[in-house]
């Protein structure tokens, strides 16, 4: 009963706060725009993870979406709506090309393919200088426009990112709670059982992977037109692991897990952004989560409540505070 009211109320509060961000100043607009992009990346990795695929290559598809959308807009003056969609679709097609042959690989082997692919994409972006300007970086990416109107202020671009992210999250949520999501979950839990009920697990895994690639492409396009400068190393292995870490730290048993993880870690790591400390920070966050909150941050409220109410009942929770 409480949950019925609590969830929508929480949503309204969070969105309300998101709307208020531009009043804090341009710095916060920048920070929170990146937070929302990270949320989208984290949430879009979830279908793959639900199927039991350890995908450490998500930033590659973000990269494809970012460069495709940026180049289309820059060289062919393609409107933003169309360039974003093209970027996302190209990321999906690339996802199909990578996913189809590597689908039969399990666990670590699949993860290794995705890791390798991140490097391939990064290197292509770095070496194909005539197209991407390589490691000098691609600049002069047009600002996003909507229905022909150019969004000149950072605040309006931020709102665009919030809007697209929210729409994407709604779609991902709908997918997850539908039969499709349940089927993905069933493959992650016991793939041979799913198979014995007639599920073509190869196709469903591929679909989960491609859905993730699509939204990673969307996130990439949003990023490209907001930062307006693309630099291959920013789509490397570390970004891909960060996306995975958002999922683990936030919690993998619920849709809000990656969202919480992305918001929490992006904000907390903000002082270290771009420095070597960022990696250390993410490693420590991951370690602490595995050690003390295996279910992720989303299990924290429940654990705290358990400590409070469970003291008399002496619940067998291994707590270091003893």
């Amino acid at each position: 009963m409480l949950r019925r009211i609590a969830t929508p109320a929480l949503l309204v509060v969070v969105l309300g706060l998101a709307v208020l961000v531009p009043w804090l100043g341009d710095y916060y607009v920048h920070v929170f725009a990146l937070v929302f992009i990270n949320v989208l990346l984290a949430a879009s990795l979830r279908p793959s993870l639900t199927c039991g695929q350890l995908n450490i290559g998500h930033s590659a598809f973000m990269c494809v979406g970012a460069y495709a959308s940026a180049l289309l807009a820059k060289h062919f003056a393609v409107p933003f709506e169309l360039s974003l969609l093209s970027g996302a679709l190209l990321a999906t097609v690339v996802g199909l090309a990578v996913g189809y042959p590597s689908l039969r690989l399990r666990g670590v082997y699949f993860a290794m393919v995705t890791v390798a692919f991140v490097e391939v994409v990064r290197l292509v972006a770095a070496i194909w200088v005539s197209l991407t300007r390589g490691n000098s970086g691609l600049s002069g990416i047009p600002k996003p426009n909507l229905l022909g109107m150019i969004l000149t202020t950072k605040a309006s671009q931020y709102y665009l990112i919030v809007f697209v992210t929210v729409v994407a999250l709604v779609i991902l949520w709908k997918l997850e709670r539908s039969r499709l999501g349940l089927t993905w979950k069933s493959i992650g839990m016991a793939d041979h059982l799913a198979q014995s009920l007639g599920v073509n697990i190869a196709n469903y895994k591929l679909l989960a992977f491609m859905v993730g690639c699509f939204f990673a492409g969307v996130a990439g396009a949003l990023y490209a037109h907001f930062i307006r400068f693309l630099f291959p190393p920013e789509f490397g292995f570390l970004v891909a692991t960060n996306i995975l870490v958002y999922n683990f730290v936030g919690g993998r048993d619920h849709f809000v897990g990656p969202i919480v993880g992305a918001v929490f870690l992006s904000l907390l790591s903000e002082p270290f952004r771009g420095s070597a400390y960022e990696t250390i920070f993410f490693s420590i966050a991951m370690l602490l989560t595995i050690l003390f909150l295996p279910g992720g941050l989303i299990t924290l409220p429940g654990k705290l409540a358990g400590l409070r109410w469970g003291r008399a009942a002496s619940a067998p929770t291994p707590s270091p505070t003893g």
Partner: protein
Amino acid sequence: MPLLETRDLSKHFDGLAAVNRVDLTVEEGEIVGLIGPNGAGKTTCFNLLSGFLRPTAGTIRFDGADITGLRSHRIVKRGLVRTFQHTTLFQEMTALENVLLGLHLHSRKGLGQVLFSRRPFPRAEIHHSREVLQFVGLSAHLDQPAKNLPHGHQRILGIAMALAARPRLLLLDEPVTGMNLDESGRVMALVKTIRDRGTTILLVEHNMKAVMGTCERIVVLNFGQKLAEGTPAEVSTNPNVIEAYLGAGLEHARG
């Protein structure tokens, strides 16, 4: 024409013949038992029939069509559905969700259903899943996570999921293992009801009392080969069978 017919069905693992030239037929509407000592090749047989393993040689015909070497989800589509020896469920999901997954082949999967419907599942699918759970006697537990169900109920839920896939031939791998007398009696009664509702049944089981009491025909495997075949009375008096495997177990079953 038999519903299921294998010819010279064989499976070799590195030279070991786990299943060796087995001819097996199952007529529509039968309850057939597949028995044999441990390692006789029963489960390998099931894995071959359901497409989880590819036969080394031989053919499998189901409903007149050759299904040898088809992938398992294609075989399910033709109406040949199996359960597993070890309790296999989607442990973290509710009983209802488990059965909903069993409906996979008979569900609506359009994008419109996913994106624009307020309900995650069409009402008809929920209704049908509830009916299946009611039929097997689990309707009181439909919102419980599968892992919280007692062992007997978990096994029955496994059967319910397979039923939701609307099999024409249901392969049950040790459906009453680990059950007490009362529970196994209820499951075997359920098996008979399932057959009476039009599903042919082939089952592997170690519990001789259950097998002898339920099956109309029994096939005995030993060392991957067919040793005997016949009615429970014929099989249980066959000297080869008694020598190979039944022996004390049969005396015990006769009481």
